[in-house]
C-alpha cells in the first residue's frame, strides 16, 4: 500500500510550510533517508528525507505553495500502485488531538534533530575530496571548494577543476561588502567589471553602476523580486504581530559606566576560558534574564486567549542574516554565567549567519532582544515576536552629559526601547520591568552574585 508523504510539523508554532523544491520526480526510485523535498518553515529551511523506500508515485504540490502541516503532499509506493489524483487532505495518522500532544511534537522535533540531511550538506562543505593543489588555488581565489565539481575518482577536485570553475565564474568574484550593497540596491552584478585584485568586484564598482543606472532610470525598469522564502516568513509574521498585538513602546536611557567596567574586567578572564570576547549583548541578555525572572508577566506567552507564564527564561537574540533575520534562542539565561552565555551567544549567532542552526535552537524563546547598537540608532519601536509579550530594542552606547549629584558628567548612555503587547501586559508592570533592567545594568556586579 502506498505511503503518504506529508508536510511535517517542525515546531510548535508551525502551521504551514512552504514547499521549496522536490528532489525527485514522479517515477523516481526513493531510498530511506534520501532527501525528498525541501520546505521552509517560519524559522528554517530544511530538507525532508524519505521515511520509506519505493517509487515516488505522486506529487500534489509545486514549489512555492504553502501547505498546512500534516497535509498529504505525495505518495511513495510500488510502481504500479494507484493513488488519488488530488491530495486526500490531512495525513491519516494525524488528528488535531494528536497534533498538539507532546509526543508528536517531540517526535517531530526528533525527526528534525536527527535530520542528517542538513548536516550532510555541512559535511560535504567541510570535507570536500580535493587535492592539496586544488585547495591552494581555491584558497588563493577565495572560492568554496564545495561549489566545484570534481573530475577525479570519487569526485576528487583537482587543480584544473578549480581553475575552470574560477574562470567560468570570473564575473561573480565580488567582495562581501560589494555583494551586500548590490543586494540592498537590487543591482545585478553579472555585467559589472571588477576593478579589484584579479578582477574582483568591489563596492565602488557597484555604487558606480547604481549611479549610472539612476541616470538612465527612465529607460530601465526596476528589478523585481518575489516575496518568498525567509522574506515571506518575516513579512507574514511582522504583519501578524502588528495586526493583532497592540504595541506600546517605552524608552529609557541606561548609564553603562559600570557595565563597561565589568566588561573590561571580565574580558580577559572569559577570553582565557573560552577564547571569545565578552560583548555587551551577553551582559544585557543576562540582565534581561534576571529581570524577567522577577517579572513573570513579561516572561509570558499569549496563545489562543491564554496567558502562559513561562517557567524558563529563554531570550531570543535577533540576528541579521543574509536577506533576513533569525532569532536563535539562549536558553535559561538567568541561570547561566557570563562565560557560558558568551560561548553560546557567539555560537548561535555565527551559526545563524551560516544558516546552520538546528530547528530547536530557534524555538522556545520567551522574550526577544534586538540590538541595533552597532548603528547610529538611539530609540526605535521593535515589533514583538509573537507569541511573546515583549521585546527589548537596544540602541547605541554614546557618551552624553548627564547630571550626577548636581554636576554634569560625561557618561556612556545606552538608549533602550521596550515594546510590549498591551493585551497581555499593562504599562505599569512593563515600566517596572524596564526600570529593573536599568537598575541591574547600572549595578551590574550583582549579576556575578
Amino acid at each position, binding site marked *: 500500500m502506498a505511503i503518504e508523504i506529508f508536510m511535517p510539523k517542525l515546531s510548535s508554532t508551525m502551521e504551514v510550510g512552504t514547499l521549496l523544491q522536490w528532489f525527485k520526480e514522479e517515477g523516481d526510485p526513493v531510498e530511506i533517508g534520501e532527501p525528498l523535498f525541501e520546505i521552509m518553515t517560519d524559522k528554517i529551511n530544511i530538507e525532508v528525507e524519505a521515511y520509506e523506500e519505493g517509487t515516488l508515485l505522486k506529487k500534489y504540490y509545486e514549489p512555492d505553495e504553502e501547505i498546512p502541516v500534516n497535509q498529504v503532499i505525495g505518495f511513495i509506493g510500488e510502481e504500479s500502485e494507484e493513488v488519488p489524483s488530488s491530495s486526500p487532505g490531512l495525513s491519516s495518522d494525524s488528528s488535531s488531538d494528536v497534533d498538539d500532544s507532546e509526543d508528536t511534537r517531540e517526535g517531530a522535533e526528533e525527526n528534525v534533530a536527527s535530520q542528517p540531511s542538513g548536516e550532510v550538506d555541512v559535511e560535504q562543505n567541510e570535507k570536500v575530496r580535493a587535492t*592539496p*593543489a586544488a585547495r591552494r588555488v581555491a584558497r588563493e581565489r577565495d572560492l568554496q571548494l564545495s561549489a566545484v565539481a570534481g573530475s577525479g575518482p570519487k569526485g576528487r577536485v*583537482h*587543480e*584544473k577543476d578549480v581553475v575552470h570553475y574560477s574562470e567560468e565564474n570570473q564575473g561573480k568574484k565580488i567582495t562581501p561588502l560589494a555583494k551586500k550593497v548590490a543586494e540592498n540596491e537590487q543591482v545585478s552584478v553579472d555585467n559589472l567589471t571588477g576593478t579589484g585584485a584579479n578582477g574582483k568586484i568591489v563596492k565602488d564598482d557597484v555604487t558606480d553602476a547604481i549611479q549610472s543606472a539612476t541616470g538612465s532610470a527612465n529607460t530601465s525598469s526596476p528589478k523585481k523580486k518575489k516575496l518568498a522564502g525567509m522574506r515571506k516568513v518575516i513579512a507574514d509574521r511582522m504583519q501578524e504581530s502588528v495586526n493583532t498585538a497592540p504595541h506600546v513602546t517605552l524608552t529609557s536611557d541606561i548609564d553603562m559606566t559600570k557595565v563597561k567596567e565589568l566588561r573590561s574586567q571580565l574580558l580577559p578572564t572569559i577570553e582565557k576560558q573560552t577564547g571569545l570576547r565578552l560583548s555587551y549583548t551577553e551582559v544585557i541578555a543576562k540582565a534581561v534574564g534576571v529581570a524577567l525572572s522577577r517579572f513573570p508577566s513579561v516572561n509570558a506567552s499569549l496563545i489562543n486567549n491564554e496567558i502562559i507564564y513561562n517557567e524558563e527564561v529563554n531570550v531570543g537574540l535577533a540576528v541579521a542574516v543574509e536577506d533576513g533575520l533569525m532569532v536563535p534562542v539562549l536558553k535559561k539565561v538567568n541561570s547561566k554565567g557570563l562565560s557560558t552565555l558568551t560561548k553560546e551567544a557567539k555560537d548561535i549567532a555565527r551559526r545563524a549567519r551560516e544558516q546552520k542552526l538546528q530547528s530547536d535552537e530557534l524555538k522556545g524563546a520567551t522574550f526577544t532582544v534586538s540590538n541595533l547598537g552597532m548603528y547610529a540608532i538611539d530609540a526605535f519601536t521593535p515589533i514583538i515576536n509573537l507569541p511573546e509579550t515583549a521585546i527589548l530594542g537596544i540602541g547605541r552606547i554614546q557618551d552624553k552629559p548627564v547630571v550626577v549629584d548636581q554636576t554634569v558628567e560625561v557618561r556612556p548612555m545606552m538608549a533602550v526601547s521596550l515594546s510590549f503587547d498591551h493585551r497581555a501586559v499593562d504599562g505599569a508592570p512593563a515600566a517596572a520591568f524596564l526600570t529593573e533592567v536599568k537598575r541591574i545594568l547600572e549595578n551590574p556586579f550583582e549579576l556575578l552574585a
Partner: protein
Amino acid sequence: MREITYLEAVREAMSQEMRKNDDVFILGEDIGVYGGAFGVTRGMIEEFGPERIRNTPISEAAIAGGAVGAALTGMRPILELQFSDFITIAMDQIVNQAAKLRYMYGGKGSVPMVLRTPAGSGTGAAAQHSQSLEAWVAHIPGLKVVQPSTAYDAKGLLKAAIDDENPVIFYEHKLLYKTKGDVPEEQYSIPIGKADIKREGKDVTVVATSIMVHKALEAAEELEKEGIDVEVIDPRTLVPLDEETIVNSVKKTGRLIVVHEAVKRGGFGGEIASVIAESEAFDYLDSPIKRLGGLPIPIPYNPNLEKAAVPQVPDIIDAVKETVRFK
C-alpha cells in the same frame, strides 16, 4: 668525450686518487689478483701492490672495523664488500662504530672511509645476494649514503666520497657496471647531496634511484609519445638528500612518483614522499603521491620471477598514466 663503463669509472676514480694520496688504500675480499667479485679492482694490485690493495680474509666484521680503526688513525680506507647483503655481518662496525665515534667522542676524531658495495637484483644470485638495503644505512645518523646511476656520476661521487672526512656508504649496482657513459679523463668531484635532473619535464616528477633512473628515463621516452612530459630526478645521494631540487620539481609538476628497487615497505621512497608531504610542495600536489618499489619478498631465483619482484618500465608507465589522468 671518451666513453667508459660504470665499472671502469669506479676503478679510475680509485686509481687516480691512490696515485696522488698514499693514505688511500683498498681492503676487501678477493680484490687482489682476482680483481674483486665483479672485477672492479682488476689490475690494481699490479699497479699498487698488495700493501694498498689488501686482500682480506672472509671477515666482514674485522675488515669493516679495521677500516674504521685505520680511518680514525689517519688513513683513508676504501672497503669493498663483495655483495651489499654482507653488510649484515659488518653492521656493528658500521652502525655502532663508524657512524657514532665522532659524535659520541664529543666531536673528536673522524672516520674518513668509504664502504663500496654492489647492490641490486638481476643477476640470478637470489635471496642473499640481490638485496637493496640502502634504507637501513640511510636511517643511521652519521652515515652518508650515495647511489650513483651513471658512469659519470660514479666517478665524480666516488672522488667526493674519498675526500669526505666522514664515512660514506657507496652503493654500486651490479647491472650498471657494464653500462657506458661519457666520463672525463681528469679527476672531478660531484658534491655529495646534490640531485641531478636527468630529464626535464612538466607533467610529473619521477624520483628514481640507481638502476631505476634508467628505467624511468626509458618510461619517459615512451610516455613522451603520448604527450606526457616526465621529469626524472636522480637524488644520487640519499644522505644528505637534496630536498630542494625535489621540492622545486614537485611544485612545478604537482605530481610525484618515487621509484626504487628496494622493497617498498620501509623503503627510502617513503622518506622522499614524506619530505614532499611536509614541504611547501604539498600545496602543489594535484594527485596522490605514488611509490614503486620491490615486492615484500626475498628476491627469487627464476629470471621471470626475479624480474617481476622489482619495478620495471611498464610499471612506471602505468603509474605515471594513473597519476596524470586528472591533469
